[in-house]
């Protein structure tokens, strides 16, 4: 998928002005966010589970080379094949080649963000394969020719009327808008035949178990089960970080993933498959292919300041918690991963220079850190990326700050390095702003404060500092 991160501000502005989308995204708070809080509150050892989840991921990432080897050995032992892709293009091409070679006609896709990185569905359709997204949200997005809005709720921004326009050929504006059940049943009807005739599936991987070569899929709809059952070829795609060492780790990871994603204690379906159909099984794929993709994750791995982002299990909790995501929506981020975790992963995977607004678009409120089931300290990493865009700290090419901006902060520093200068600077500002103010507030301030006063009044700097007011108290102490 081609990154459009450079359009963050204009895309965000469009969403801010769209009342329908603003109303639709509200669900991520009232539904998912609140659901997670309730589920966590009802889980007595919740904090221990988070700690354990973080420990499992820390350990796995710190030994990722070992576990990649172990996983590969075991997938092969189970009769599957493993393909290593350095980037999205290699992965996409491999899957296309496979589909051609196996004379595939119909491909069913289960939700997978990694496949979005590859732009897989589009590419497969272009090459003549009937390619159908089977997660209802993804299906809607595919019909709308859009990209997912959210990690677990791809069509969260769509209204029922939007969906009706896409699903119901007879629907015209002005008609009664079908309810969610009617729309869902229309989709069921349309997709049922596709499932039956599909000869290849592409699914994501929620967790790949290194010791057994198993993959675990978490779904509510059942499309994950269909995908691992009906077609004769199953291709699972994963980012190279999506491993857990042992079968028992699933117990912890499934608990924290599902609670954090939807607030459920368990999803309707959890499917664990150990490669292709076993000889005594009645159905299941004849071939199992696992595609393990790097696509820039190496850069996160190599970077001690950002490595923790590889612990992400893609639950979407940070999006639901984020006040910025809930206003600018998923498309503003311009690539596969939106929201707080996207503001770290996307710039690194697609280039920080064009994506420099992503880490800046945060009030650093920390709600994402609080919500993360594996305790990823997202604000810390946002600050790290801001350091890079402001000063080019790791690579001069990444510096996108303007000379003016740098000048302001230099002047700020000089002002802060001596109390006299600090006071004089403030007094000058106070005097300069005074004539523009009424009752101690400014309606319109000159730059750089003009941004503030575009929507809010700004307080006038006090006529005297605290220091001068406290003058009668003790001075410098030794």
């Amino acid at each position, binding site marked *: 998928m081609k990154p459009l991160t450079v359009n963050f501000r204009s895309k965000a502005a469009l969403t801010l002005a769209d009342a329908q989308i603003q109303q639709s995204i509200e*669900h991520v708070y009232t539904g998912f966010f609140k659901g997670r809080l309730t589920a966590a509150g009802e889980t007595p050892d919740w904090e221990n589970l988070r700690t354990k989840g973080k420990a499992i991921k*820390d*350990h*796995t990432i710190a*030994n990722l*080379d*070992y576990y990649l*080897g172990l996983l*590969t050995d075991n997938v092969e032992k189970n009769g599957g094949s493993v393909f*290593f892709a*350095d980037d999205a293009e290699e992965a996409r091409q491999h899957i296309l080649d496979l589909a051609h070679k196996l004379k595939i006609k119909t491909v069913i896709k289960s939700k997978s963000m990694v496949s979005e990185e590859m732009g897989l569905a589009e590419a497969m359709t272009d090459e003549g394969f009937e390619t159908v997204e*089977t*997660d*209802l*949200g993804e299906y*809607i997005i595919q019909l709308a020719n859009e990209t997912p809005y959210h990690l677990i*709720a791809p*069509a969260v921004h*769509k*209204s*029922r009327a939007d969906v009706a326009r896409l699903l119901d050929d007879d629907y015209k504006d002005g008609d009664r808008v079908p*309810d*969610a*059940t009617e729309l869902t*049943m229309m989709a*069921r009807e349309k997709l*049922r035949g596709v499932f*039956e005739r599909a000869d290849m599936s592409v699914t994501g991987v929620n967790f790949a178990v290194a*010791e057994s070569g*198993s993959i675990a899929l978490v779904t*509510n*709809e*059942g499309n994950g*089960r269909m995908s691992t*059952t*009906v077609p004769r070829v199953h291709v699972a795609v994963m980012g190279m970080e999506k491993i857990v*060492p*042992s*079968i*028992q*780790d*699933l*117990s912890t990871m*499934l608990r924290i993933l599902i609670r954090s994603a*939807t607030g459920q*204690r*368990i*999803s*309707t*379906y*959890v499917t664990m498959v*150990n490669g292709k159909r076993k*000889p*005594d*099984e*009645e*159905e299941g794929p004849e071939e199992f292919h696992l595609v*393990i993709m790097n696509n820039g994750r190496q850069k996160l*791995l*190599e970077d001690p300041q950002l490595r923790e982002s590889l612990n992400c299990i893609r639950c979407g909790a940070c999006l639901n918690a984020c006040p910025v995501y809930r206003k600018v929506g998923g498309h503003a981020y311009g690539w596969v991963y939106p929201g707080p975790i996207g503001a770290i992963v996307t710039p690194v995977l697609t280039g920080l220079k064009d994506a420099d607004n992503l880490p800046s678009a945060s009030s650093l409120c920390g709600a994402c850190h609080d919500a993360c089931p594996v305790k990823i300290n997202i604000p810390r990493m946002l600050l790290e990326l801001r350091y890079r865009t402001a000063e080019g700290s790791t690579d001069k090419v990444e510096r996108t700050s303007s000379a003016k901006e740098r000048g302001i902060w230099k002047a700020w520093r000089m002002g802060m390095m001596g109390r006299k200068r600090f006071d004089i600077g403030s007094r000058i500002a106070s005097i300069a702003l005074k004539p523009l103010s009424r009752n101690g507030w400014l309606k319109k301030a000159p730059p750089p404060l003009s941004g503030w006063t575009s929507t809010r009044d700004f307080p006038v700097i006090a006529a005297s500092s605290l220091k001068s007011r406290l003058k009668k108290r003790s001075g410098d102490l030794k």
Partner: protein
Amino acid sequence: MADRAKFIAGVTAGLGRTEVLSPTSITETAGFEDAATAKANAVKASIDALERSKDLADQMAEEAAKAGWKVHRASNSEDAVNYVARICIEKKATSVLRSNHDAIDQIGVEAAITNAGATLETTEHHGENSQAQIEKSKSKAFSADIGITGVDYAIAETGTVVLHPRSGLSRLVSLAPPTHIAVLRPGEVLDSLDELFAMERNDFMSGELAGSMNLISGPSKTADIEGTTVTGIHGPLEVHLVILADE
């Protein structure tokens, strides 16, 4: 294409090392217990399931209902059979598929289902699993009205039915028909996911890990349209859990 060695060498370099090292503190974080410990854990979970079978069945009934199962606690086999027959009549079922779980044989549903006007079939291939045979089974499953299974385990904590597909237990019997009925016997209920994965780990360590496993907690559902939960998107619209009495 990146070959395995090159790909993994890149990761090793990314970790700041020159060779792949076996993790040291493995047991601290990951559940890599040895075979004896895995076995002991599994035995403990099984004994627990038997000793607390009454409590766990009660909890299962409660949690399953929350998860969206229509729960029926059968007073005896006859009651269970009648319940199944009622569903067949209600659904105007003509085709019912079953797994080969003992629980179904134990209550003996065949006569009642036939009387209700439906055919009862197994999906068993009897050793023959050619592609043609598989295709035939598939279309049978997609056109069946009801699927009946037992359970391999259940999980009280979450109201979950666990199935390990194998000969006699199709992956589709609990998925493709619009109605699924699961018949549960006391003693089959584990406490939580921890116990389930302890059992799985032991199976793995003793080389008996099943080809796949499905955890089923209620009917298929989605909330992808305006956050409204709707049941029955791809899988069953309705799921029934018949809990047999301790006899």
